[in-house]
C-alpha cells in the first residue's frame, strides 16, 4: 500500500482502537493485528504524533507494580474518526466507478 495512505489509515485505526475504552500499547497492537501489519516501532511514533496533535491523552497507571501507559481519545480524536468516515464515502464512490469501468471494459 502507498506509504502516505497507510500512514493516514494507521492514525485512524489507532484512534478507533481506543475509541470505546482506553487502551495500552500491546493491546492496541493485538487489536489491529488481524487487519493491518503494525510493529512496535511503527506504533510509537503514531501515538506520539496523535498526542502532540491533541487527538489523544496519555496517563500512567500502575499495573502489577509497574507503569503502564493508557491512551484516551479526545474530542478532537473522535472528530478525526468522523472526518475519516465521511472522506471514505467519497473514496468508495470513486472505487465503485473504477470497478464499474473495469468490468465494462472486460465485456468488450
Amino acid at each position, binding site marked *: 500500500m502507498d506509504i502516505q495512505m497507510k500512514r493516514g489509515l494507521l492514525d485512524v485505526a489507532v484512534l478507533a482502537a481506543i475509541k470505546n475504552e482506553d487502551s495500552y500499547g*500491546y493491546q492496541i497492537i493485538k487489536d489491529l493485528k488481524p487487519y493491518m501489519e503494525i510493529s*512496535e*516501532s511503527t506504533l510509537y511514533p503514531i501515538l506520539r504524533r496523535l498526542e502532540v496533535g491533541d487527538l489523544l491523552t496519555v496517563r500512567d497507571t500502575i499495573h502489577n507494580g509497574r507503569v503502564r501507559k493508557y491512551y484516551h481519545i479526545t474530542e478532537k480524536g473522535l472528530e478525526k474518526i468522523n472526518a475519516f468516515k465521511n472522506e471514505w464515502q467519497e473514496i468508495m464512490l470513486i472505487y465503485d466507478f473504477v470497478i464499474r469501468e473495469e468490468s465494462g471494459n472486460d465485456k468488450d
Partner: protein
Amino acid sequence: MTKTEFLEKLKNQLSTFDESEAENWLKYYGEMLDDRIEEGQSEEEAVNSLGSIDAIIDEILQQTPITRLAKAKLNRKTLRGWEIALFIIGFPLWFPLLISAFAVVLSVYVSIWSVIISLWAAFASVVACGFSGIVVGIGFIITGKLSSGFALIGAGLTLSGFSIFLFFGCKAASYGIIWLTKKIVLSIKNSFIKKEAAK
C-alpha cells in the same frame, strides 16, 4: 536474549539520542516486553517477537528527523577549553575543507541526477525524431518523392520502436536512483549512532 540485555543494548544504540527521548523509547519497549511476559511468553520469546535490534534502530532512525539527530549529538558533546581554542584557530583550515567536502558530495549527487535527466532527454529526442521522421516521410510521399519518403518513415518507425526500450531503461534507472537516495539518507542517519555505540 533476556529483557534486561535487550534494553541495555537498545540503550547503548540510542546513546546519542536526546536523553529524554531515548528514555521514552526504552520505557515504551520495556512496557511492551512486560505485557508480553505477563501474557505467558518467556523473556526470550517476548524479545524475539520485537524483531532484531538493528531493524528496530533502523525504524527509529527513519522516524527521527536528521536535524534532531545532529542536534542531540552536538548537545551531548562537551567541549574543553583547548578544544574550543583549536576549533577557532583551525577555522581557516577546517572551514574550507568542510565546504569542499560538502561541495564534493553535492556535485556527485547532482551529476547522478544529471545522468538521469540526460537519459530522459535522449529518450525525448528519440521520440521526437521518430515522430518527425514519420510526418516528414508522409509529406515526401504526398509530394511524390516516394523512395525518400519510405526511407524516412522506416527510420521513424525504427526510432519509435527503439524509444520503447529506452523508456524502460530510463524508468529503471530513475527508480534505482530514488532507492539509492533513501539508502544514503539512512546510512547518514546511522553514522550518528553506530560510532558512539562502538566506543
